[in-house]
């Protein structure tokens, strides 16, 4: 047993760190660290830098232009990204639809879509969730009816993250409404967002931000060649995608960075004239999270080492999801508390990159409370924590 990183892994970390210093745009990193809004262009500049370095396909095999990194390397990369203020890679293309295309796509589909994902030509979004379905994905209602060499798609998707920027959407659609089980009769389609009949409507979240969307399909004609795999077997591909979505599910790097930021706030905020970080109760709460995060990092590394040794992560992923979101949410909760009365003002304009007005209270205050509310989503989206517990109860405990 040796819990130190190998010299090779240490060297890799140095390499990643050097890249962050030179190639991560400083203005983008500053926005991420300050909790500011990112534009489409901010994301594209960052991902282009990664692409040029050959590091966008973090989870891709080298044959498709990916990094071919080990799980531990990916962990190091993600940790360094978070520490440097690199935005999270937008997952819908590179980490969600791409693995499905690689595994189940035709040679033509692979040749067409994968390079366009890697060179940022296409921005992808997801068309899984539907209104009223929630964690019960298989109950989807969007219909696709065959008409010659096209499908005609009608229905509605929702919670489509950053769909307002997207060129393409991958969709689960019902192609056989008569199928015996809800999981059967579903197909997996790739749809060009410019196709007539598609309408994107913003959903404003409780923090006032436009992050997710509804996508409406009104007689949208999709070439049959845009279908992945076989008709009515889409659930298989969908499940494959969901397991691959779970990259960096524990979010250890992000929580570490959030904890560092919390400490900065707690050192600056005063309570009875002393830094808040010296308050025994507040400091003990912070220590509790800090220790939970240490344990989570070890649990995550144990799972990674297992994967690296050829094991398949099962219910452990669900444990990482649950604890990872709990820790992250707890940090945002403490940050909000740390602000005291300054959690109240809602200075939305201060979140824009170009803002040069006077901040209300300390410069770090503006995004904190909004961020706390936004992060409530972590335990809901991507399979709610309740669903994760059901999975563990069934798969790991046999209940």
């Amino acid at each position, binding site marked *: 047993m040796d819990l130190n990183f190998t010299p090779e892994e240490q060297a890799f970390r140095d390499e990643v760190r050097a890249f962050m210093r030179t190639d991560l745009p400083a203005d983008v990193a500053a926005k991420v660290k300050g909790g500011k809004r990112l534009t489409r262009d901010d994301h594209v500049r960052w991902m282009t830098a990664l692409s040029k370095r050959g590091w966008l396909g973090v989870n891709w095999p080298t044959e498709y232009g990916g990094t071919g990194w080990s799980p531990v390397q990916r962990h190091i990369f993600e940790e360094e990204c978070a520490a440097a203020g690199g935005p999270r890679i937008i997952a819908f293309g590179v980490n969600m639809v791409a693995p499905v295309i690689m595994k189940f796509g035709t040679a033509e589909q692979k040749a067409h879509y994968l390079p366009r994902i890697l060179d940022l030509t296409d921005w992808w979004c997801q068309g899984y*969730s539907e209104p*009223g379905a*929630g*964690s*019960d994905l298989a*109950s989807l209602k969007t219909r696709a009816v065959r008409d010659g060499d096209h499908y005609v798609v009608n229905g509605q998707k*929702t*919670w489509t993250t950053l769909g307002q920027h997207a060129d393409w959407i991958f969709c689960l659609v019902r192609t056989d409404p008569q199928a015996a089980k809800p999981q059967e009769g579903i197909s997996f389609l790739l749809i060009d967002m410019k196709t007539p009949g598609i309408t994107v409507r913003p*959903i*404003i*979240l*409780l*923090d*006032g931000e436009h992050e997710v969307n509804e996508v409406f399909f009104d007689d949208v004609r999709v070439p049959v060649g845009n279908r992945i795999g076989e008709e009515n077997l889409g659930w298989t591909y969908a499940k494959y995608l969901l397991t691959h979505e779970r990259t960096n599910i524990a979010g250890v790097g992000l929580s570490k960075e959030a904890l560092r930021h919390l400490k900065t706030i707690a050192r600056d*905020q*005063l*309570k*009875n*004239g002393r830094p808040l970080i010296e*308050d025994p*109760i*507040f400091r003990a709460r912070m220590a509790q999270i800090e220790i939970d995060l240490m344990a989570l990092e070890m649990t995550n590394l144990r799972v990674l080492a297992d994967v690296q040794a050829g094991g398949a992560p099962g219910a452990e992923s669900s444990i990482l999801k649950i604890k990872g979101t709990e820790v992250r949410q707890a940090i945002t909760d403490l940050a*909000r*508390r740390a*602000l*005291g*009365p*300054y*959690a*109240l*003002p*809602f*200075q*939305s304009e201060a979140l824009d990159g170009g803002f040069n007005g*006077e901040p*209300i*209270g300390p410069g770090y205050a503006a995004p904190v*409370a*909004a961020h*706390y*509310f936004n992060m*409530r*989503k972590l*335990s*809901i*989206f991507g399979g*709610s*924590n*309740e669903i994760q*517990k059901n999975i563990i109860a069934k798969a790991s405990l046999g209940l």
Partner: protein
Amino acid sequence: MDFSLSEEQRLLKETVDRLVRDRYGFEARQAAAASEQGFSRAMWATFAELGLLAVPFPEAVGGLGGGGVDLMVVAEAFGRGLVVEPYLATVVLGGSLVELAGSDEQKAHILGHVVAGEKLLAFAHGEPDGRYDLAHVGTRAEESGDGWRLTGRKSVVINGDAADTLIVSARTAGGTGDEAGIGLFLVASDAAGLTVHGNPTIDGGRSAEVVLDGVAAEPLGEPGAAFPAIEAAVARGIAALCAEAVGAMEVACETTLDYLKTRKQFGRPIGSFQALQHRMVDMRTELEQARSMAILAAAKLGADRVERERTVSAAKVTIGRAAHHVAEEAIQLHGGIAMTWEYALSHYAKRLVMIDHLLGDVDFHTERFIALTDGTAA
């Protein structure tokens, strides 16, 4: 031991409940919150007509002579409606300060206008780095030939941008943190040297950053010994916030329960899942405990200082924890829909969480409760 409302209180409750139910729908609330001043002048006029602005004041100045329980009745209904009008700022805090610290003439004049809905007040008290400490007043009050002038900064002044008159705390003697040497002053919103920057708050209200640069001010009562009045007014404010939170928690619990009964997943109402049932039960238990403390805080507003302050601190702790629990669980049990702006519950959740940031949070009041319990505080 009698928990029932008096006849007058029952009538008051009917009035305010009906108002909120019939005329304070979510759409109207959102429109008022999004307006420039962040509330509806028409609704404020209605409050005046219905006598709601007169509730806590002595009959001598046109008030209804109501006590803590009357205030609780109003605030709980306002919590159910997520009311954004500046009732806390103008009536509960501002009005109470005038009542408790003002001269007879000031009381008659100002409260008369407040009751009539003609005057809005705000309590400009908190300062940068002051957090929740009521004695943290660094703003200076200096007397010269032509009267008093104030210089300093006040931060997160609730509804400060709408107020016709700010009630500003300022130091006539001593140092920041001393309870002695704090005075209260009336400052007109158009006074020279006064800057008021208003902004929305995350829970749909308004606050302001206030800068005073040698602003002319009229003392509210005798300057210099205002701390007891501030403490007593804030105690009323806390009791009102506790009752408001109870009202908002009621709606959050009802909405969630309704959702559990109607929303189906995997072919059955999600309320049939036992894990969610037990969590719903925990929310309701928290609500009942919070209601108990809101009642106790309201009932003890007239008690002697230590008993009153110990009780309101205990109540604020209970409410802070319960409101946080109910808000987070209500969102979680709903799932994504409660994360959206257009679903009313998300705004209830925001208000519930933010009430902890007003007039002292759980940690502040836990410490204060301990000091008052162990006799380590004055």
